């Protein structure tokens, strides 16, 4: 059965894990009430930096694997 590469799962676990942790912290510690905090963890990290990091590893590692195989796509 075809199966997405390991790096796909790394990105998925990172993103959903981060989101779940934020929601748990909001529900238990109320971090959403720390002045300015939601902007940094939900907007800058959750909306911008982590998806961007995923998009980088999703092209970097497949390209590296292609080079190791001795060719491009």
């Amino acid at each position, binding site marked *: *059965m*075809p*199966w*997405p*590469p390991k*790096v*796909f799962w790394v*990105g*998925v676990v990172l*993103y959903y894990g981060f*989101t779940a942790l934020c*929601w748990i912290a*909001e*529900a*238990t510690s*109320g971090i*959403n*009430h720390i*002045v*300015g905090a*939601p*902007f*940094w963890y*939900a*907007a*800058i990290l*959750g*909306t*911008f*930096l*982590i*998806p*961007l990091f*995923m*998009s*980088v590893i*999703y*092209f970097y590692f*497949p*390209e590296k*694997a*292609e080079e190791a*195989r001795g060719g*491009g*796509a």
Partner: protein
Amino acid sequence: MVTVEAPVIGITVLYFIAIIVIGYYSRQRLKSATDYYVAGRQVGAVVNGLALESTYLSPASMLGLPAYVFIIGYPFWWAMAAIIAGMPIATLLTASALRKYAPTSFADYYADRYNDERLRWLVGIVTVIAAVLYITLSIVGMALFLLAVAKVPYIIGLIVGTVIVMLYVVWGGMIATSWNAAFQAALMTIAAVIAAIAIVSSLGGINGFYEAVAANNPKFWNTPSDPQPPHVFSGTWIAVIGWFFVWHYGFATMPYTVVRFFTTMDIKTARRSIFWCTLFAGIFYVALQVIGASSKLMIETGPMSGTGANAVEILKGYMAKYGVGGWPDYSMIAAVEALQNPWVLGILCAGGLAIAMSTAAGWVMVVNTLLTRDWGSMLLKSKFAQERPILLARIVSVVFLAVGFIVAINPPGLVLDLSGWAFVVIISALGPGLILGLWWKRATRAAMWTTAIIMTVLHLYAWLKAKLVLGHHAFFFLNDVLFGNKAALITPHQVWAIPVGFILFIVVSLITKPPQEEVVQKYCVELTQEV
């Protein structure tokens, strides 16, 4: 006499000139039908990435989104985050494999993987319905920006916007659409960032912004765990999770993004283009989160406000004044007007036109390829379609834009609302066949037909029942039957439909005859190896 400040007119006119010039010059590069349909597969990573952003994000992002944010509250930020995170997920889920396969139309993969040419009809019909709804929404969006910001009469705005999109789609097909969409993405991102920076600066920085929003809208930063959630739609964690997932997988499966993966030079460019898309779309959405959070405050303290002003009432005043769309559609315009800076307003007008035009053009390109190549040439074996494909594609483009224009003259509210339905129906009806067709050998033709037909009909019924009988499309359509309370379960945009579509597809696949091994090997195993 209504006065419009010179920067607004100047920036809007410059924007129109720029996209007409790009469209005209791209005509010279058009040599074949492949150039028209998929830009000769010569689009680079940066251009494709930007084009993906502006095509995927519909005019709703620049019209009603701020109102959704200030009404539903901070939990809606996570729905916006999930839209952006859905972009990289598509890289290895569908984009790489589909670029390796290099089809021309959205229906190619379905017909080949499931070994059934008739699927071109089925996939085409579902896509055409969605296209008409989205093209209409986009044309209304263009005219609404011209009306509310540049004070251009609605009918003139409709004509100007439609004719310009027609010109560049007819001239340069996917080449013009790609370059213009890239330019439009840059513009709308810059517009949102400038507006967000201006708002945050006026409120005294990030912390000042947080506190000002909290003072104006005390429940805004709350979550379902707080005693008073911002709204009933964000009142439970189930609802928040629903919002999170409702648009999350669209990027991997929607026709207007999927066809952009076909236009890139190679698989490497396809992957890298999603990086550029995520970069610009992420910046754009952070800016929209800020604008949305502060829009209530900005509207209530802006020039349209009075003592004890209420943002919703002010926006209803906008709607009554201009007579088009719903009151949330004016939230972005009203929030930026509150800054009283004509340069920012002018850039916002160009950015709003950009996001609307790019979405309309993207959908037109999907349907002109489907109707000309798949239906006309391959299924009906039309001599005209086979000998003059570019001419026919141009005619189809004009027809779809003309239909959108006619509906947009007096747009029924239901038609505009249904674009949200169309988004989910494509993912739930056609998404399982696309994703599982690539990643699951057992995916069968019977499952593809069953899921596409049942989910389209079921979701239309559910959406209409929720909207017309229960009162809002975000209510679960069986609330009255199961719980005796129409608002018992909030399932934004019927988010249940996507898992139900996948489950239905899996069940039907398991009980029907497995596909031929050689087809599976070619269109499933080989495409997904080393993506």
